[in-house]
């Protein structure tokens, strides 16, 4: 693996379109890898895209009336309903085209939300939309806590992390639960496409988004979005941290296409989890025992994932 880029195509950045659909002047924090992920997603989807956004960081940084960072149609309604609003947009555009009231055209509909808006408060609306089979992409920008309201824990916060509602106390050392496996919940809906991505791997991310857009039916993309503010990490380290999350096995990059698992970066050996944890203030209080506990869990989960890859591809190749 090259130091900086997936695919070793070092000069690929120069080849992609310089057109932005999420424009500069947004008010995300310094080094926000979630804003970067959003920029890459919007770039990959291009012009023919309509977005329904949940309440959250990306909504707030991009839409202070009378200004908008959006070059594509975009709507925000509430926190927990991005998937339902997107369902309505998809249904509306479809029926208007069918009735000949707007010209037929391939328009992608995307719902976006953070990890709280996805795995906690928005889970029901998302489950409903996936089950009903709307032709849309749902993108979860997972920064592993409620960052917009001040770094409160969510069900997506990793074990051990200190947040403002799971503080590292003298008795309870931070988050006591394991990160909810949201991509697996999406997979359980038997939708045609599920993927994980990270803005530290921009081409991988953009390819997945394009693939999701091309597929008919619901697609779910879960993007680890490093938050220097909430993770207590120097902003320049945001991309590096995402890379470590992948290389330690904390956040494996994989796709599930029509039920078949595929690891995008198949690591023969995982880097020690400590390399990832030690650069973040939210994990500073962890004891060697807790680090060992996390290391073991990450190893087990990674093996489980590899098993799924083997099981779902048996006899296929």
């Amino acid at each position, binding site marked *: 693996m090259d130091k900086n880029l997936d695919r070793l195509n070092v000069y690929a950045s120069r080849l992609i379109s310089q057109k932005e659909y999420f424009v500069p002047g947004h008010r995300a924090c310094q080094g926000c890898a979630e804003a970067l992920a959003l920029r890459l997603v919007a770039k990959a989807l291009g012009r023919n895209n309509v977005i329904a956004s949940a309440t959250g960081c990306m909504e707030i940084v991009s839409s202070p009336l*009378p200004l*908008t960072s959006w070059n594509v*149609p975009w709507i925000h*309604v*509430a926190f*927990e309903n991005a998937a339902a609003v997107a369902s*309505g*947009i998809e249904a*509306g555009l479809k*029926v208007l085209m069918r009735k000949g009231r707007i010209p037929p055209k391939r328009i992608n509909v995307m719902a976006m939300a953070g990890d709280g808006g996805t795995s906690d408060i928005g889970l029901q609306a998302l489950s409903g939309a996936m089950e009903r089979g709307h032709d849309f992409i749902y993108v979860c920008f997972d920064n592993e806590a409620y960052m917009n309201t001040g770094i409160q824990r969510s069900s997506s916060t990793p074990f051990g992390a200190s947040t403002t509602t799971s503080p590292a106390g003298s008795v309870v050392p931070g988050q006591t639960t394991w990160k909810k496996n949201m991509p697996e919940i999406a997979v359980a809906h038997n939708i045609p496409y599920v993927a994980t991505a990270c803005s530290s791997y921009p081409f991988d991310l953009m390819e997945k988004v394009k693939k999701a857009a091309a597929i008919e039916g619901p697609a779910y993309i879960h993007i680890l979005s490093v938050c220097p503010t909430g993770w207590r990490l120097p902003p320049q380290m945001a991309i590096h941290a995402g890379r470590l999350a992948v290389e330690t096995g904390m956040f494996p990059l994989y796709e599930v296409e029509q039920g078949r698992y595929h690891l995008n970066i198949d690591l023969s050996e995982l880097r020690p989890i400590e390399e990832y944890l030690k650069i973040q203030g939210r994990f500073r209080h962890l004891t060697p025992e807790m680090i060992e506990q996390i290391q073991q869990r990450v190893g087990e989960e990674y093996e489980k994932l590899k098993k799924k890859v083997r099981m779902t591809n048996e006899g296929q190749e």
Partner: protein
Amino acid sequence: MATRVGMEVSIAAAEAVKQANVDVIAAYPITPQTHIVEHLSEVVNNGELDAEFIPVESEHSAMSVCTGSSAAGARSFTCTSSQGLALMSEIVYITSSLRLPILMLLANRSLSGPLSIWNDHTDVMSIRDCGWIQVFVENGQEVYDHVFIGYRVAEDRNVLLPFMVNLDGFVLTHVIEPIEFLDQEIVDRYLPPYQPKYSLHPDHPVTMGAFATPALYTETKKAQTESLTEAMPYVLKAWQEFGDMTGRYYHPVETYKTEGAKVVLVTQGSLSETATLAIDSLQGAGEPVGLVKIRLWRPFPFEEFKEAVAGADLVVVMDRAISYGGPGGPLASEIRSALYAQEKRPRIVNFIAGIAGRDVAPEDFVHMIQQAQERPGEWYELYGVRE
């Protein structure tokens, strides 16, 4: 020409939605709204209506789907009751701020708890200030008519607001009534396809639902409240045109035998029909008692109401919701406000009755009026409660 058919009101309502050529329907089942959506799913699945029927996983998503589809430019419909309205209320407030012309039929039912599936107005009164145009109807024909009238008003470029039709659960939704159906060509002329001012489409990218800081929020709310107040003439116009077309004229405040009445009873919804029987019997006995029905709840028709009760010394208001720890019922509060600045103000007595489907017979209205006449002062009470 128009045909008259005996039909369950819920079915007639769904038929009206079909005739209104609605594009997207999103609903979640709740008693007593279910027959409306069941029939709608039938007309869609039988190809009688070309629409997307979205069987959502909650009322919250029902209103959210309608918000998305209406923002995309599609004529959108939902209906609910009680707890369903309570669950979707967060989004109900947002659709009016986004100025999306969604139509909702609300089959009025009590709010829990205790759980009750029966009819009163506690559900709608809980979202009184949601910014929608809100009307009450009295019978099946009015339900049917207001589907067309509702969209006509809501989608008017000068209005662009969501429209809520309140129809009493069970006593309207589940009864068979004679309905005069409109010919499709008449409906189509009255209600052309929705032409949104703004819609979500890549050819003209817009941002909807931006947030406002304190520096601008007050201005957004001023614009919103003005939009609702200023909707009044367009509601009147839509009713007038509907009347000219069908002979059925509707008014924000409707009166029954109020000429020379010294006592006026005020009602909303289907109990108004029962109340007319009480008025007939009292007038037969020589009592100068009339009836005023509030059809338009938001925007509230202050002037029309004042005119309707101009000659009265006593106004007896029947509410079907309680404001706990407050001054009685929400309708009476509104009426007191409307009349407060009058030089000669009638005495106002408030009964809260017909809660959770408890029967209110014509004799009960007679009894309420007599009690109000006998007992001085201004007061409210829960009618017919066992002590």
